[in-house]
């Protein structure tokens, strides 16, 4: 069974990886990919890195993107526009709590839209 994937976009690779650790402790079946930092792993965001993470997280059921400050949102939007899949949603919710909630919802087999709506409703 495919699950809606989750991409964590942060300026810091440690933040993105840390949230991934936090979530995978309880939700193991949902594809969660970290896109933190620049290509050189400095503080910043990278369209290329986000695109690759989207590709890995999409196992056929679409992807939800969570982001932090500044350029993260803009780079996420660009990566979305450039992606092949239509089934990608940017979620306006706190990065940690939002992605955690999304992982739980996705683990119940919900669609990207259903997960998105459930997360947005909780914040």
């Amino acid at each position, binding site marked *: 069974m495919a699950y809606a994937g989750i991409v964590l976009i942060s300026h810091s690779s440690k933040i993105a990886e840390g949230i991934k650790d936090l979530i995978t402790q309880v939700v193991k079946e949902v594809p969660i990919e970290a896109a933190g930092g*620049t*290509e050189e792993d*400095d*503080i*910043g*965001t*990278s*369209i*290329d890195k986000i695109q690759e993470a989207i590709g890995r997280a999409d196992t056929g059921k679409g992807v939800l993107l969570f982001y932090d*400050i*500044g*350029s993260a949102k*803009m*780079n996420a*939007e*660009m990566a979305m526009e450039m992606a092949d899949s239509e089934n990608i949603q940017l979620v306006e919710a706190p990065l940690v709590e939002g992605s955690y909630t999304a992982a739980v919802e996705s683990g119940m087999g919900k669609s990207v839209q259903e997960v998105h709506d459930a997360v947005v409703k909780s914040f």
Partner: protein
Amino acid sequence: MEFQAQDAIQWIGLTNEKIQANKEYLTSLDQVIGDSDHGINMSRGFQEAVNKISGESYDTASDVLKDVAMTLMSKVGGASGPLFGTLFLKLSTTFKGNDPVDYATFTSGLEEALSGVMQRGKATKGEKTLVDVWAPVVEHFKQENAFQADKILEVAKTAMENTKDLMATKGRAAYFKEKSIGHIDPGSASSYYIFEALAEAEGGY
């Protein structure tokens, strides 16, 4: 105005020289109201763009600027990557099929670039962003019917200096609220170098 592939290459080359020479200055502007990486990011992006276009042969200005746009998007980093990438991508798409690019087409290209970047950054005038330099320059191009290097320099410079008194409400600088007043916006400074380079490339300054 007869803007061709070699003019575009010269324009980007000159822009890169200015960005490299002012790398520290751009970073110092970003230190006060941002995350102090603007100079580093822009110098990396434009250097990569120059490396890319100097290794290829081009028939049109549109093709040159497309490669510039794609390189800036993936190499600049931060918000400046997609923003400056969008500017050059819109110029490229407007110039497509028009070679050499005449004054009217160049003006439409700048207009498209401005509206594209405003959409991408969800920004408008007066928010202490690069829009505050691009908008008056576009206005100047629309008012005239021939390329005037000295006027472009003047308009771009005044516009850049005017960003000093604005309070940022977009981008990372917006987190700094009142603290953002009194400093030139880094993206506006980089945009000034782009137009200074254009004036030199096209006007022989």
